[in-house]
C-alpha cells in the first residue's frame, strides 16, 4: 500500500504531488451548486441574503419603535411589552445576526480566497456547514417571535436577574430560544472562523506576503481572531444563564422576591454575567469595525487612485486596536458599581484606543490628499463613513470617562453615540463595499443615480435621526422607555424632536428599499461591468471570468509581485498596476501619456 521509506518528516503527511494544488468539490447538480454548495462565493451570497433578510426584520422593528416614540398613544397595537421586545430584538439582530454575519460570513467568504489568490477556503465542507448552522441560529431566533409570550424583552444585553425573572416579556420560551440561538450562532461562526484564519495564514498565493495583503483581508482576519476569542465568553454566559433558568442553579441569580414570590435562587452574581457579556460585547464592536476599516482603506485607495497612506502603520494600528479591545470591557459597567481604581484603569485603556484609531482616520484623509478623487458611489459612502465614524468616536471619548459617563449613562446620548459609531458607520461601509464589489459578483454595474440618491438620503437622514439624540441625552431623557408621561425634566421640545426623528427614520428606511430594488433590477438589466470596472489592483479583479467561477482563477494560480496599492505609479502607462503583473511587464508611459512625469 505505502512505501516503507516514508519517514517521520512533514512531507509524508502531504498529499502526493499528482493530486494537484487543491481538490475542489465541484458541483454536479442544482442542489450542490446553489444550496448545499461548498464554493465560498456561493456561501458568501447565502450569508448575505440570510443576513439581509433578518436585517430587514430588525429594520421593521426599529420603525415600530420609532412609531411609538414619535407618536405615543397613536398606535394601539404597540404596548409596553411589545416595545421592549422590539428594542431587544432590533439590537441583537443588528449587532450579531446582521453585522457580524455580513462582514465575516459574507465579505469574508467572498473576498478572502479571491484576494489571497487561492481557489477556495481550506475546509470547504466545514464552510458550508458554517452557513447552515448560521441559518439554523436565525430560524431559532425567528421562532422566538411565535412562541407564547413572544421574544425576550430583556434588552440586547440580557442582564440577569431581570432577563429571566417574571414580569419581563418573553421570560418563557423567548429567552430560552434567544440563548439557544446565540449558542448555535457561535458554534457556526467558529466553523467559519477556522476557515478564514487558516486560509489567510496558510493558503495565500505565491508572493502574497503578509505585508502585501490588502487591508480588507487584514481587517477581516483580525476581526475573526477577535471573534474566536471573544464569542466563547458569550457562549459561557449563555450556557450558565440557561442552567440558571432551566435547571435552577444560581450562577447569576441572587436571592430575590419577584412579583411577591420568593424565588429559589441564592447567592448568584449578576455582575459576573455583566463581566462575561462585555468581555464579548466590547470586542464585538471591533469585530464589526475592523473589517469596515479594512474595506474603507481599499475602496478609498482605488477610487482616489492613490496608494494608501502609511500601509504598515495601518496594519499595526489594526493589530493594536485588536489587542486593546480586550482590556476595555468594564467601561460598559461604570454605573454597575466598581472599585474607583478599576474605573480609572478602564477609562485610561479606553482613551488609549483613540490613538491607533486616530492614526487610521488621519491616514485615510492623507490618502485622499492630492488624490485623483472619483466621486463614485462607493467613494461617497466611504467619505460618509469617515465623518460618521469620527463623530461617533468623539462622543465615545465623553462616555469613556467615568465622571462624564455617570450622568449620561442610559440616556439617549448613549443611543446616539453607538448608533453613529457602530450602526451607521459600518452600514456605510457595507454599502460602499456592495457598490464596489457588486460588479464582480454579478458582472453588472449598479445604477449610479439611484446609488447617489441612496447615499444622500441615508447620510442626511441618519444624521437627522442620531444627532438630535445627543441633545436629548444632555437633557437627561432615558433610553428604553416606552413612554415618558408627565415629567418635570423632559421639555415639550423633546416630544417634537421625537416626532421629527421618527419621520426621518421612516424616510431612511424607505431609501433602503430603493437600494434593494436597485440590486435586483441591476442584476438583470444593469450595464455590463467587464472584469475590472474600477481599474483596481487587487487579485479579485484579475480573474479569468466575471463573475469568477468555482476555483476562482484560470488554470494557473496568480503569482503576486507587488502590494495592492500601486496606483498612479510615476512612469507607468496606466494609473494602476495589478498585483499579479511582474516588474518587467509593466508598460512604460510614452511622451504623450499624462503619467509621463
Amino acid at each position, binding site marked *: *500500500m505505502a512505501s*516503507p521509506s*516514508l519517514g*517521520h518528516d*512533514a*512531507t*509524508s*503527511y*502531504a*498529499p*502526493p504531488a499528482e493530486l494537484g494544488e487543491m481538490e475542489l468539490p465541484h458541483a454536479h447538480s442544482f442542489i450542490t451548486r446553489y444550496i448545499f454548495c461548498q464554493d465560498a462565493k456561493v456561501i458568501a451570497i447565502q450569508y448575505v441574503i440570510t443576513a439581509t433578510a433578518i436585517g430587514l426584520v430588525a429594520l421593521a422593528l426599529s420603525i415600530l419603535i420609532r412609531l411609538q416614540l414619535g407618536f405615543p398613544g397613536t398606535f394601539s397595537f404597540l404596548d409596553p411589552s411589545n416595545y421592549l421586545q422590539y428594542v431587544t430584538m432590533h439590537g441583537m439582530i443588528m449587532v450579531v445576526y446582521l453585522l457580524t454575519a455580513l462582514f465575516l460570513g459574507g465579505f469574508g467568504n467572498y473576498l478572502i480566497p479571491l484576494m489571497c489568490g487561492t481557489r477556495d477556503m481550506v*475546509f470547504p465542507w466545514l464552510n458550508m456547514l458554517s452557513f447552515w448552522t448560521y441559518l439554523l441560529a436565525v430560524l431559532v431566533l425567528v421562532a422566538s417571535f411565535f412562541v407564547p409570550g413572544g421574544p425576550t424583552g430583556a434588552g440586547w444585553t440580557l442582564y440577569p436577574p431581570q432577563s429571566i425573572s417574571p414580569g419581563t416579556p418573553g421570560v418563557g420560551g423567548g429567552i430560552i430560544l434567544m440563548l439557544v440561538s446565540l449558542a448555535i450562532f457561535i458554534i457556526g461562526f*467558529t466553523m467559519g*472562523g477556522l476557515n478564514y*484564519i*487558516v486560509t489567510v*495564514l*496558510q493558503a495565500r498565493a*505565491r*508572493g502574497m*506576503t*503578509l*505585508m*502585501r495583503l490588502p487591508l480588507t483581508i487584514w481587517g477581516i482576519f483580525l476581526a475573526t*481572531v477577535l471573534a*474566536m*476569542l471573544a464569542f*466563547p*465568553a458569550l*457562549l*459561557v454566559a449563555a*450556557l*450558565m444563564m440557561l*442552567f440558571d433558568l432551566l*435547571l*435552577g*442553579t*444560581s*450562577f447569576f441569580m441572587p436571592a430575590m422576591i419577584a412579583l411577591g414570590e420568593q424565588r429559589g435562587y*441564592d*447567592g*448568584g*452574581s449578576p455582575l*459576573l454575567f455583566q*463581566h*462575561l457579556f462585555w*468581555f464579548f460585547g466590547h470586542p464585538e464592536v471591533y469585530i464589526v469595525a475592523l473589517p469596515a476599516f479594512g474595506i474603507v482603506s481599499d475602496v478609498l485607495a482605488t477610487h482616489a487612485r492613490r*496608494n494608501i497612506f502609511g500601509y*504598515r502603520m495601518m*496594519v499595526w494600528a489594526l*493589530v493594536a486596536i485588536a*489587542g486593546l479591545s*480586550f*482590556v476595555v470591557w468594564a467601561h460598559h459597567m461604570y454605573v454597575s458599581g466598581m472599585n474607583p481604581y478599576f474605573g480609572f484603569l478602564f477609562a485610561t485603556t479606553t482613551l488609549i484606543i483613540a490613538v491607533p484609531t486616530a492614526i487610521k482616520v488621519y491616514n485615510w484623509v492623507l490618502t485622499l490628499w492630492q488624490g485623483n478623487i472619483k466621486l463614485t458611489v462607493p467613494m461617497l459612502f466611504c467619505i460618509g463613513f469617515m465623518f460618521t465614524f469620527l463623530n461617533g468616536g468623539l462622543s465615545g471619548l465623553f462616555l469613556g470617562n467615568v465622571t462624564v459617563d455617570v450622568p449620561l449613562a442610559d440616556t439617549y446620548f448613549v443611543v446616539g453615540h453607538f448608533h453613529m459609531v457602530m450602526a451607521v458607520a459600518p452600514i456605510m461601509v457595507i454599502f460602499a463595499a456592495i457598490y464596489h464589489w457588486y460588479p464582480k459578483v454579478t458582472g453588472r454595474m449598479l445604477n449610479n443615480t439611484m446609488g447617489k440618491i441612496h447615499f444622500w438620503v441615508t447620510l442626511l437622514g441618519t444624521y437627522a435621526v442620531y444627532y438630535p439624540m445627543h441633545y436629548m441625552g444632555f437633557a437627561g431623557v432615558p433610553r428604553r422607555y416606552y413612554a415618558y408621561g408627565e415629567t418635570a425634566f423632559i421639555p415639550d421640545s423633546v416630544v417634537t424632536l421625537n416626532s421629527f426623528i421618527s419621520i426621518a427614520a421612516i424616510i431612511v428606511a424607505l431609501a433602503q428599499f430603493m437600494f434593494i430594488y436597485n440590486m435586483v433590477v441591476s442584476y438583470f438589466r444593469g450595464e455590463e461591468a467587464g472584469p475590472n470596472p474600477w481599474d483596481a489592483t487587487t487579485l479579485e479583479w484579475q480573474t479569468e471570468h466575471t463573475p469568477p467561477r468555482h476555483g476562482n482563477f484560470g488554470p494557473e494560480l496568480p*503569482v503576486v509581485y*507587488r*502590494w495592492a496599492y*500601486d496606483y498612479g505609479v510615476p512612469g507607468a502607462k496606466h494609473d494602476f*498596476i495589478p498585483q499579479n503583473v511582474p*516588474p518587467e511587464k509593466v508598460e512604460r508611459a510614452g511622451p504623450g501619456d499624462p503619467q509621463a512625469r
Partner: protein
Amino acid sequence: MRVTLIFLAVLLGISLAWIVRQTINVRPWVAETPGPSAPDHLPAAVTAARLGLAVLLAVVTSFFMLGTSAYFMRMEMGRDWIPLAVPGILWANTLVLVFASFALQRAWNAARRWNMDKLRPALLAGGACTVVFIAGQAVAWGQLQSAGHFLTGNPATSFFYLLTSLHALHLLGGLAAWMRTMVRVRRGDAPYKIRVSVELCAVYWHFLLLLWLGLFGLLLYN
C-alpha cells in the same frame, strides 16, 4: 477575568511577536519577483489541518479559561460557596483518560511507521478508554447525586456539573472524529489521509487530557 487575561496575554504576545517579525523591516511598496521558496509562508510542516486544529484548540482554551474565570469570580462574589467533596472515582477516571491519550499516541507512532497491525488495536483502545472515561464521569455524577449534592445545591457543585459535562461534550466531539478515522482505516484510505486523521485525534486527546488535569486541579483546589 485574571485567568482569561493571562491566557490572552500569552496568546496575543506570541502572535504579536510573529506578526512583528513578518512585518518589520519589510518594504511593502517594493515590487519584486518571489523566489522559488517563499520565506513569508508558513513552514511545510504547518499544514492546513494542523493549523486548523491549533486554532480550534485556542478557541476551546479560551472557552474553558472563561469558564475558569467565572468559577473564581463566583467563588469570590458569593458567600455561599461550600467546597465540593470530590468523588474518589475521579482519580480512576483520570487514569483511564491518561491511558486513552497514551493509546492514541501509540496509534500515531504506528501510523508514522505505517504499521497497520499496531495501529488498529491502539486506535481501538484509545476510543474504548474514552468511552470508559465518560461512563466513569457519569458514575461520579450519580455518586454526587446520591450523596445529596444536587446541581442546584451549591455553586461549587453547579460548576462541577457544568465544567465536567462541557469537557465530556468535547470528548464526544472527539469521538466523532475518532469514528471517522476508524472508518478510514477500515476502508483502507490513502496513507497520508489516515496519518493526518490519527495525528489530529492524538493531539486533540492530549489537549483534552491536559484540560481535564487543569479542571480536576481546579475542583480539588476549592
